[in-house]
């Protein structure tokens, strides 16, 4: 073992991405975000900071929302990944949240949008599973789904930056699908 990562070191992993299996030899330095963008040409997941600070790269890993720029691909063997390209499933119709983003004009440049969408899908599942947030009141019972008002949505979506300032419209869109 050396303390520096060994450049050029690779391993084989298998992932399911948007329902399709992929077996790849990955550079140990490669993060999931670059695997999606470079190896699979799934460029819907965006790189805003490569540093866990903006949320543009948010995808669902085994149903949980995670910053794909912070996940070394080699650690994800056997995982099930959903990206913005897979949110709508196989059908022609977009996911209801994608439709709500269009209806509410919940974006401008669109660069944060895939991350906002994946994050919101993950967030709704967390709330449905009863996970509290920083603004969940102590009187809220543990266990049942947490009701989401605008304050809860804002708090839970705060890892996803939008420099165009589409925030109020994003909250509108999320409320539309609750």
């Amino acid at each position: 073992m050396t303390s520096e990562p060994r450049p050029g070191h690779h391993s084989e992993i298998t992932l399911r991405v948007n329902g399709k299996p992929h077996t790849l030899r990955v550079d140990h330095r490669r993060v999931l975000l670059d695997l999606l963008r470079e190896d699979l040409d799934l460029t819907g997941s965006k790189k805003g900071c490569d540093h866990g600070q903006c949320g543009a790269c948010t995808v669902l890993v085994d149903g949980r929302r995670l910053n794909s720029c912070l996940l070394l691909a080699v650690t994800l063997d056997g995982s099930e990944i959903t990206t913005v390209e897979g949110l709508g499933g196989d059908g022609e119709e977009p996911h209801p949240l994608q439709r709500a983003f269009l209806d509410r004009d919940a974006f401008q440049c669109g660069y944060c949008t895939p991350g906002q969408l994946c994050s919101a899908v993950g967030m709704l599942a967390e709330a449905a599973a009863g996970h509290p947030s920083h603004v969940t009141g102590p009187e809220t019972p543990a266990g049942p789904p947490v009701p989401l008002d605008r304050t809860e949505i804002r708090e839970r979506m705060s890892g996803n930056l939008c420099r165009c300032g589409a925030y109020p419209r994003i909250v509108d869109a999320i409320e539309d699908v609750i």
Partner: protein
Amino acid sequence: MTGTTGTTGAALGAPAERREGRQKVTGAARYAAEYTLPGRAHAWPVPAAVARGRVTAVDTAAALALPGVLAVLTPEDAPRLADPEDATLAVLQGPGVPHRGWCVALAVAETPEAARAAARAVRVTYDTAPHDAAFTEHHRDGYAPQEAGGQPGRVEHGDPRAAFAGADVRVDVTYRVPPLHNHPMEPHASTAHWDGDRLTVYTSSQGGTTVRSTLAQLFRLPEEHVTVVAEHVGGGFGSKGTPRPDVVLAAMAARHTGRPVTLAYARRHLPTVVGHRAPTVQRLRLGAGHDGRLTALLHETTSPTSRVKEFVEYAAVVSRVMYAAPNLLSAHRVVPLDVPTPSWMRAPGEAPGMYALESALDELADVLGLDPVELRARNEPAEEPGSGKPFSSRHVVDCLREGARRFGWEDRDPRPGVRREGSWLLGTGVAAATYPVQAAPSTAGAQALPDGTFVVRINAADIGTGARTVLAQVAADALGVPLDRVRTEVGRSDLPPAPLAGGSSGTASWGWAVHEACAELASRLAAHTGPLPAEGIETRADTTGKADADSPWARHAFGAHFAEVAVDTVTGEIRARRLLGVYAAGRILNARTARSQFTGAMIMGLGMALTEGSTLDPAFGDFPEADLASYHVPVHADVPDVEAHWIDEDDPHLNPMGSKGIGEIGIVGTAAAVGNAVHHATGIRFRELPLTPDRILAGLLSES
């Protein structure tokens, strides 16, 4: 909205949905770094680690020995460029280091990981020279620039100093705005490839036409050998208004390696290489009679620039537009330092300038015991104070009054520091807004096809404004056809050349040319009999001489911002509870996308007020707050419900659509409205942004 797309003559103003929306929400929209061309390589810059000096050696051996590394370009061996007009683009052309972060080498490798590792392995040695990166208002190298934002650096009317000295009521205050970073969510990126002596770049730019002419000049190519594609741009806010080093470096690396190359700047690289809002120190002196009428207005601002080129943050220009003061001074000073080059950031000049002016006006209202809306109404000028020209339209007081009505301003108790809610103090504030009407010459093409549809072609950039959509609306009405029969093509340099998306001028400039091309097409079609030929009928318009003609009118958009804040007396935290804006910006061409631009800019103004702040570090010569964990742009939890409204304005002196720019005015004055609300809440004037808890708490403690 489907109800409007099938109707003739009703497209302008309708809330039409973004045409590229579906692509953006499904991930299909491709941005500059996402053109995965076969054989594509990746470049990673090596930023200078010193603030001033010369590169004496670049040792590339260790980098080149790493697997997957294709090349390391250095100032010694990089391709030689023609001298650029913009000196920030003269990258790898010599050993000089004008500021920390300047590109001193470029690693190119098969993968982004390998390129980054290679850049780290490059050993650069420097001959370091003493540097000066300490910005102070009275720096001895400061000078008065000839120009500020294309206007005279200094305007003086009457005898402002004497009038101020003799005024009944005086306010003499200094406001400070720190360096600010644009930080569009898509970092600047370019993908370049050569096919013989033809260059194609996919780049994240607000203006592909200028990128093309710049690359042609630098690489000594005929313009028609350069193709620039910017289909989707992940925000810019001014920092992508001119070509940046990424596009030059990517083209150099692609030429050097014979491979397509992508250079996507890391977030941390951006602050030193893509421009930033220069900090300003602004002294405002307001002299008034007891009736609140201004007798003297002196607005003096100082900001740093780099030694690479002069950029003046033209913050004092707003004082030539806003208020009637017979004795006026509006003047700029600039201090060249060994620092990164500042540039445009959303409403350069106006945003910091109106923060200071509108805050000072609030202070004057306080001293006079006059309502701040009323004070502004009393100082309405009959013509533009700086130029003496009549206004083409000016409804700032209407915006203030309409905003006051919607916000519930009339019930406001003017006394500061008296509204408590537990440990919170509450307050409300107001500020006016202004932004100039600008337009540049553009060309555009329009084509009628035999199937009854139409295509509009123009090298406009859609940076999130919805350019495709609004231009289709302009075209539909000029042609007198339903909106869904018009297709727009933008974002490619093989389309008719067009100016940049900047200065809130994009829609005016492009729309003007689109309108003309379509109006001519409509008259050609009216004269045409029988079916159309297979290739249809095409027209082309060029607005040179019209869009840039001198106007006898002073043309500006105006607005008003209202804010409600709560200040936590325990932690010093400020929470914005409400933001409301009312605008008079000519005809609003798309109600849906316009609202998003207004509120989006207000949110950036909220960031300017409360969270965004950077520091020019005198020791290192760059910004410690280089990433999004240390430079705080507003997040969901910071942003309350934000309302934007507008007043219908019918101004015949603008352009064929009757529109004024809307992309920037939302940030102008927002920070002042928030700051004035903080004063109303706490009774304390904080005169330096951002209003972070450490400052607020220190202020609250020293008061009590």
